[in-house]
């Protein structure tokens, strides 16, 4: 499991107050009892952790942990390079 997957799982585990080793990429939101408030909270924590913005339309399609990890991978890969300001 890569760093992105590990960090996503850690964020979800912390938010749900459960051990990270009980979560894998196939774990569904339903299995984790993730409600709409959890989803908002986890999305924000993921955005903060990776400095990304999750598009509104993507939020509704997230069904399992793997969806989150894949979405983050794409958003991180497509991040515009930082421009030096000095």
């Amino acid at each position, binding site marked *: 499991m890569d760093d992105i997957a590990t960090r996503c799982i850690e964020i979800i585990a912390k938010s*749900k*107050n459960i051990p990270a080793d009980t979560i894998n990429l196939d774990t569904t939101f339903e299995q984790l*009892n993730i*409600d709409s*408030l*959890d989803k*908002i*909270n986890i999305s*924000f924590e993921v*955005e903060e952790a990776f400095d990304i913005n999750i598009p509104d339309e993507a939020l509704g399609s997230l069904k399992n942990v793997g969806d989150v990890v894949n979405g983050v991978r794409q958003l991180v890969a497509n991040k515009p390079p930082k421009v030096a300001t000095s």
Partner: protein
Amino acid sequence: MNRVVITGLGCISPIGSSVAAFRENLFAGNTGISTIADVPDAPDGNPGVRYTQAAQVFDFDPSQHLTSGVIAASNRNTQFAIVAARQAAQQADLLKYHNPGDIAIIMGCACGGRSSEEHEVKGLYTRDARAHPLTIVRTMSSAGASQISIDLKITGPALDISTACASATHAIGLAFHMVRSGMATAAITGGHEAPLSFGFYRAWDSMRVVSPTRCRPFSADRDGMTLGEGAAIFAIETLESAQARNAPIFAEIVGFGMSADASHITNPSVEGAATAMRKALADANASPDEVGYINAHGTGTQANDSTESAAIHQVFGARAPHIPVSSTKALHGHSIGASGAIEALATILALQAQRLPHTAGVTTPDASLNVDVITGTPRPADTTRPVAISNSLAFGGLNAVIALRRFS
């Protein structure tokens, strides 16, 4: 008009997160005031103020009571409110008897989600951070009333009252009037507050009214208040509905009085406090002679305790020096919008036990106040005087007083 009784009690407080623990510590005089713990968002956790003490709740773990979603969407004060309301509603078994649409939720909360607000603003000003998408619902003062309604599935009128240190007493008074008039058949009412955050500590420090030592109301050497947090929430209903199902009755609410000083934003007035007390007694149709206990606002500041004592003299005349008075703030601190409810709980327990809690921490009672401050240990109640009043006198001169009667 309906008679209104209290059939359920709940609390999360610095002296216990159950009513049983609160009762034990109240009568034992065990204070919940201690050294300020690490303050989130303060440099090195240190608030940098001239005082070191606060009344904090250390035994509350929201994950023991609430889902992760509700925790994410709520500030600590709201979490206190949900759990304390559950305690009260369950004890009264309120929802088995009353239609959810006929139950009101009237809460007192003045500071809202202060710590969440400060955290977000700090991020914004220091690193242009994005705001958490649940910031608004965490910080709105009415969140407690909303979350209680969601948690207990109560659909009647629900609102928050924000009148600084009198918020909870105004809330209880309004709920009492609603049930008495028949607008609601029952209510969940009280107050909740968890404002102990970096900016809050600093703002109160600047006012120079917080004790550099520890709150000791009515003491000759008193030097200010001690900030606190907590919640106390009650289930109240008509006497008829309580008796119909043999619900436990802890006390009867008999009167509510309020007034505005209309004089100064920080200096309290004798006339304003006296008017609220008089109105509460008139509303209760009780004579001053029936009052056997005053649970004072008693913040421990020079201004409050002297003004409140003078107001007691104005209302009770020659009896004033002989009516037992105590302030329980030396135990649970001053929790602003929740304080009136926590003190109402102390008053209810006193009426029930016929035992009057003492004012902890008093070294020498201030003789110039000429009131009968209970010190040292609790005192047996005078059973011939079954009425007690609980005063809340807020900054800005907004005063609220409730009158309670022992139920037998």
